[in-house]
């Protein structure tokens, strides 16, 4: 096999978006008739790499060879011509059109008149050949996600694709649909097609793939043969590993501040994001929420804050149920929130530093009295907080959008931590920050713990979780698989749990909430 020319060979691929280096010198080799898993966390560069292969982006550097020949893929047309087809994560389907119409769109064949019967017959024929079931005359908006995905597969097969790229194909599928999909993927392999599977779900990697390429932060992290690796090995490659001493803990946790039980909630795309979460965080304790990104962590944070409606379950903060409160009321109970995306959710970028410090407090003393803003108090507090939280430059009037990422995050912290919250929900608080800013954020969170604050820390950085947390909860596919004391959370164990292996939990640690 190694002697055969690879059907896809990408070498030294780099791509930059503005300041973000999305891909740096990435290689990918895929053999004909293979199911090749491309894995990595959200933002690792998987989709970007495949968008380059499909011609949606152009690489800044690097070469792509298809069947041994160097290929210039300037757009999807070129890709289709080379026999490359993409099954997008967000389905590229037109909801009011039928299954058959979606399959043939852009390549309808026959005259200018729409020959519905002919089209449907052609699609049925294709379905029979690859063992795919979908009613050709049904409208896309009326069929479930699993069927929509089959339509996406039919689209690329209709165009004669030999190489099929699946971008996170199981994200919206039910377990039954996932099984059906894998059956189809194996049939495709049997028909001599090559499949590239973008995913971050290790169970899937183990279940169907032949080879695995792992990306981390836009770089190659590992190239593995599936039969000769373990899920834990892949998980550690995905999140990165660095052995270090676990810092000694100080202080003893107090009363339970956050208590979540039986929490379920839908995702943005309809399926369940949370499937019965039980979790507790005590005063003076940091609970780290580990897991490969996209397993429901952000949805949990949004539910606690009141930004997302829970479908069932209880969320108590200081003993009061806040499950049905809006963010305004939740925050009044002493909940602070460091959102995942500070530029969109954390800050109003065109506002000044001082104005951002009062976001959510704009109607309260000392910033306002009887609905009238007190400009002097806002400026004074702004200057004080800017200094206290080391915002550089410490100018309360400067526009937040013009600050660096680290200083923007300091503004968020200054706003969220300055009023002695009871509970802090911090979602990826150091993402994209440099080392100094990261340390600063860590120190501030530890200060809050010493003060007696309860902290739920969501992070995809295993090091961060292990350095800061007293206990570590691992999330997988909308569930909390285990809550381990930090001392027992070895890397191997966390890696297995993050891959969905519950057996990794020892006898002593259960899934007890608090």
């Amino acid at each position, binding site marked *: 096999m190694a002697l055969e020319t690879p059907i896809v060979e990408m070498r030294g691929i780099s791509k930059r978006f*503005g300041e973000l280096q999305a891909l740096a010198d990435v290689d990918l080799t895929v053999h004909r008739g293979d199911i090749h898993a491309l894995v990595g966390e959200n933002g690792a560069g998987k989709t970007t790499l495949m968008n380059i292969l499909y011609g949606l982006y152009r690489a800044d550097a690097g070469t792509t060879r298809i069947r041994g020949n160097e290929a210039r893929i300037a757009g999807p047309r070129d890709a289709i011509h080379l026999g490359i087809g993409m099954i997008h994560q967000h389905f590229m389907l037109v909801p009011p059109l039928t299954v058959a119409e979606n399959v043939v769109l852009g390549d309808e064949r026959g005259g200018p008149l729409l020959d519905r019967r002919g089209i449907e017959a052609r699609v049925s024929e294709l379905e029979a050949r690859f063992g795919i079931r979908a009613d050709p005359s049904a409208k896309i908006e009326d069929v479930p996600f699993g069927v929509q995905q089959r339509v996406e597969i039919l689209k690329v097969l209709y165009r004669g694709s030999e190489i099929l790229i699946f971008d996170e194909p199981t994200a919206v599928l039910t377990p039954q649909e996932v099984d059906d999909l894998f059956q189809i993927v194996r049939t495709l392999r049997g028909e001599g097609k090559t499949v590239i599977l973008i995913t971050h779900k290790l169970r899937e990697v183990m279940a169907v793939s032949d080879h695995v390429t792992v990306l981390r932060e836009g770089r190659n992290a590992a190239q593995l043969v599936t039969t000769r690796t373990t899920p834990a090995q892949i998980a550690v490659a995905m999140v990165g590993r660095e052995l270090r001493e676990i810092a000694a803990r100080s202080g003893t946790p107090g009363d339970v501040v956050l208590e979540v039980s039986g929490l379920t909630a839908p995702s943005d795309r309809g399926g369940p994001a949370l499937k019965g979460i039980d979790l507790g965080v005590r005063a003076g304790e940091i609970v780290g929420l580990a897991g490969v990104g996209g397993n429901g962590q952000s949805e949990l944070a949004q539910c606690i*804050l009141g*930004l997302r409606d829970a479908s069932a379950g209880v969320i108590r903060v200081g003993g009061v149920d806040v499950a049905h409160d*809006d*963010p*305004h*009321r*939740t*925050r*009044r109970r002493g909940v602070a*929130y460091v*959102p995942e995306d500070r530029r*969109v*959710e*954390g*800050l*109003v*970028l*065109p*506002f*000044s530093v001082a*104005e951002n410090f*009062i*976001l*959510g407090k*704009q*109607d309260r003393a000392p*910033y*306002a009295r009887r*609905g*009238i*803003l007190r*400009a002097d108090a806002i400026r004074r507090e702004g200057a004080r907080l800017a200094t206290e939280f080391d915002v550089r430059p410490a100018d309360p009037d400067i*526009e937040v*959008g*013009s600050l660096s990422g680290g200083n923007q995050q300091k503004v968020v912290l200054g706003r969220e931590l300055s009023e002695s919250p009871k509970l802090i929900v911090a979602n990826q608080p150091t993402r994209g920050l440099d080392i100094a800013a990261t340390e600063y954020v860590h120190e501030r969170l530890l200060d809050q713990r010493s003060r007696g604050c309860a902290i739920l820390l969501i992070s995809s950085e295993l090091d961060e979780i292990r350095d800061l947390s007293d206990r570590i909860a691992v999330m997988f596919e909308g569930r909390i698989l285990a809550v381990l004391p930090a001392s027992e959370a070895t890397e191997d164990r966390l890696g297995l749990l993050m891959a969905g292996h519950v057996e990794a939990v020892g006898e002593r640690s259960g899934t007890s909430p608090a």
Partner: protein
Amino acid sequence: MRQPSFEWTRGPAIPVVSVLFALVLGGLFVWISGHDPITAYAALLRGAFGSPYDISETLLIAVPLLLTGLSVAVAFRAGLFNIGAQGQLLVGAVAAGWVGAQWPDLPAIVLLPLTLLAGILGGAVYGGIAGWLKAARGVNEVITTIMQNYTIVFVMHWLLQNGPMQAPNAFGTPASAPIGAGAVLPVIVPDFLVPSSRLHAGVLLALLATVAFWFLLWRTSLGYELRAVGLGMRAAAQAGIDPRKRMVIVMAIAGGFAGLAGMIQVSGLFHRVYDGFSAGFGFDAIAVALLGKNAPLGVVLSALLFAAFSRGGTLMQSDAGISSHLVEIVEALVLFVIAAETVVRAVARRWGTPVKAVS
């Protein structure tokens, strides 16, 4: 439909350039159609500012333009596109006209505030409906407000032609009964200064409204919330500022400004409501707000500019024989250059230049 997202650089460079550009193009148009642009613009200028009387007439037109301009601007600040200032103005006028005529014998100290309140409330309710439909049912405010503009026109036809507001002895244009003397805004320019000036106290109300606009947006908690929703809806939402509630509130405020314009037209100028009343101000208001960058002083200046166009255009037609509709062409060109500014910004953003916006 997409939400408008207008961000503006500080400073008056772009508005000034766009007006000059539009004037040059308009002049070119005049020249092509066989007239002298200099003569045309000179007549326009004379018509707008040639005598104290002309100036007072120009100011009269500026008042409803300013108020409807504030109406559009306040909605823009919260990220909404209010095309309904015209309809809100008319509802305000009807409400004010009805109250003013219903109790004509009340003293001014009672009737004038009552009329004022009626005008503002009428517009606020009409605008608030559009905000509520957006918040509760997701109806695009552009569609609602366009439809509302036409609805009130026909409701007025009915009210004035054979409905409850029809004046007993009206002939010619259908009209309501005149409002009571207590509801009239007095003329504030003495005869010896400007003979037979019609400039009324509404000018002062409009300036007061401009101060209120500034105070609301930059000096109150509510104004802060509206701007936060307009500039960063998700950040505002997670901080506990519910964008949907603010949508209803800001559309009601926008309607209130426009309703005040309607009330002033009734109490200050016409002293009754008639069919075809004050047409077109609400559409010019969009240009006024955009050219004025949704800022208080900017809106005042652009309202004056468009008022001067309007007043001067009439004289240009009678003096220089050039259709007053030239000013509409110029106005359209101004709007176009402003729309093009978003293009310039889009390009600038793509090239990585940081975009600053007024908060």
